[in-house]
């Protein structure tokens, strides 16, 4: 069946031949027709999980296979969502070791993008909680691989290009409550925000910042630090049911927003309001896990606020040594263009040894822009600034990077392509891999 698919950014939209196999035999048959790419829950922003000639939806592979209540080890099929794991295991005292900003990602997607969370500096990316992965390769065989194996190392962060991730074994984190002790630290400028990050921050740290700030308030941020709360920190009522959290009202964006709804004036107003609201909340508070980790998940289809043309995410990481001037240059370019972003997020990443994953020690910046010719021009400028400062790009967010920019930013591309030439390249390819030539 053919269907129009896109990533979460709704750009680009691709007419795809889609199959949704229900068992390994059907999956093997789908792979044999290659080129194909596996698709989880469609949360990568661009074209990493679309292939016009064959997109394989993995939603039927969504079973939990095993759980060890002593160690928190789970085995599950690749279509299981982090939301499923939380629903099943948080009431028993376990939470994902690493989670991105939405719980609606599949395990397969989390592995393929080697996603990171607000605790990367301390705990690493998704890779660090994986015991093994099982991959269906181009010849239809299913191979289990563990850390250190070539297949494992290329698959984690390999954007689904080594084969179809079928199953995984991973470890969860023991927690004693469903609450996060949050500390909100307002930072009037970038230097202050970075100082806060460089202190001992606890388990989680993330900053929202105002990318329309200019002059002295360039990089004005709200840094949010967090740690899993223990029962002693809860009220008596909360302590009685430490994993129960108040039900959040679920909202839905009912239609595409009109093009005029987002402009520099509404963005400025939003950012100013958000900053002032943050100042009022400064200091310590107790936040439930859902609001803390997944503030946007309650607004179904929030990606529609950018209207029909969709939006493009930009996420880069800059090495520690050049982070400060690099971030300033990026913010100045954005400010000068007048094209702000609601969701401008800054995080400190730790060191990570891996073959092709995104993270490196330094600072990562994520922004989104409604797609327009002007925005695409700005993104090219941001690409150039990133490359100049020795940074690289997060492929899970990308929808428009150029092949030469990728190569200029990341010397690991050569080895990745060499691995791909041994076979997977002819069977596994996404719109993204074809665009950026990997």
């Amino acid at each position: 069946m053919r269907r129009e698919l896109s990533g979460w950014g709704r750009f680009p939209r691709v007419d795809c031949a889609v199959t949704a196999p229900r068992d390994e035999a059907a999956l093997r048959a789908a792979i044999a027709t290659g080129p194909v790419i596996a698709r989880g829950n469609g949360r990568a922003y661009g074209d990493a999980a679309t292939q016009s000639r064959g997109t394989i939806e993995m939603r039927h592979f969504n079973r939990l296979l095993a759980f060890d209540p002593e160690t928190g080890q789970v085995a599950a099929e690749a279509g299981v969502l982090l939301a499923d794991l939380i629903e099943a295991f948080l009431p028993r005292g376990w939470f994902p070791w690493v989670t991105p900003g939405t719980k609606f990602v599949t395990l397969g997607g989390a592995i393929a993008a080697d996603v990171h969370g607000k605790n990367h500096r301390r705990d690493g990316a998704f890779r660090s909680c994986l015991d093994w992965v099982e991959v269906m390769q181009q010849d239809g065989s299913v191979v289990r691989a563990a850390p250190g194996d070539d297949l494992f190392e290329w698959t984690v962060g390999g954007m689904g290009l080594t084969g179809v991730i079928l199953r995984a074994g991973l470890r969860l984190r023991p927690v004693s409550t469903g609450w996060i002790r949050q500390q909100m630290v307002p930072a009037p400028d970038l230097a202050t925000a970075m100082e806060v990050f460089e202190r001992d921050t606890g388990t989680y740290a993330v900053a929202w910042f105002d990318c329309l700030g200019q002059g002295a308030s360039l990089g004005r941020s709200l840094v949010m630090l967090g740690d899993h709360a223990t029962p002693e920190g809860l009220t008596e009522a909360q302590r009685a049911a430490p994993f129960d959290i108040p039900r959040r009202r679920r909202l839905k964006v009912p239609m595409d927003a009109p093009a005029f709804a987002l402009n520099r004036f509404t963005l400025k107003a939003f950012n100013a309001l958000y900053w002032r609201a943050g100042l009022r909340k400064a200091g310590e508070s107790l936040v439930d896990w859902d609001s803390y980790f997944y503030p946007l998940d309650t607004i179904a289809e929030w990606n529609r606020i950018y209207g029909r043309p969709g939006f493009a995410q930009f996420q880069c990481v800059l090495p520690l040594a050049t982070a400060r001037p690099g971030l300033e240059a990026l913010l100045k370019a954005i400010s000068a263009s007048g094209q702000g972003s609601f969701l401008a997020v800054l995080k400190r990443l730790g060191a990570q040894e891996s073959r092709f994953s995104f993270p490196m020690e330094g600072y990562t910046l994520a922004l989104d822009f409604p797609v327009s010719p002007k925005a695409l021009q700005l993104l090219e400028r941001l690409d150039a600034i990133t490359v100049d400062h020795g940074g690289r790009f997060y492929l899970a967010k990308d929808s428009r990077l150029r092949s030469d920019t990728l190569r200029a930013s990341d010397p690991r591309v050569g080895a990745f392509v060499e691995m791909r030439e041994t076979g997977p390249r002819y069977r596994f390819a996404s719109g993204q891999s074809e665009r950026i030539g990997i």
Partner: protein
Amino acid sequence: MSNGTLLVLGGRSDIGLATARAFAAAGWDVQLAARDAATLEAEAKDIALRHGVAATCHEMDATDLDSHAAFYDRLSPFPQVVVCAVGALGDQARDEADVASATAVMRANFEGPASLLAHAANRMEGSGTSTIVGISSVAGDRGRASNYIYGSAKAGFTAYLSGLRNRMTGKGVHVVTVKPGFVATRMTEGMDLPPVLTATPDALGQAIFTAVAKQRDVIYVKPVWRLVMAVIRAIPEALFKKMSI
């Protein structure tokens, strides 16, 4: 509604599994019954792991009517709620030409389910509060050229459920008739279904759980179907026979 045990007849179907998940999420133990039950172990394990309930698989052949009594004899514990999600869409063109395959569709959608529920009802009668849920179809509301073989069997099943409800009222057994419109399942995969009329299996499972808890009689999962079928039933036969819908 206090927790108990749910039996799903047709436990491999997307609707049957979704119903099992909805009950398990509320703490019910579930029994999945189907042919080749061993191949359902992964589904049962998934339900058990997610919800911390007991989930078991049971061999059952809906079209082998003589085996039904023995199937219930082997079942332990006997469930408080039985959901029948057995059915087969058939292939209208083939079934028109091949009468034997038409009768197989009728057996899978009417005789088999009715026999399974007859045994269940007789065992439930006088045993306290229990519920029978039959998944019928809007296709049974009026025979149409495009699917009347399947539709006629569903019409029979709908009438059967209505009569069973009538018989069991006051005897501790409640009967729910479910008439899903389009549902995005394995049975309808590849069909071009209008989204406003199409429910997901999970929505259906949740609706069935609610219908059991609230002792509803007949549910259309998407309320718009009640209206659509009222209109279709109201068309005079003289006109209807010339239409192609």
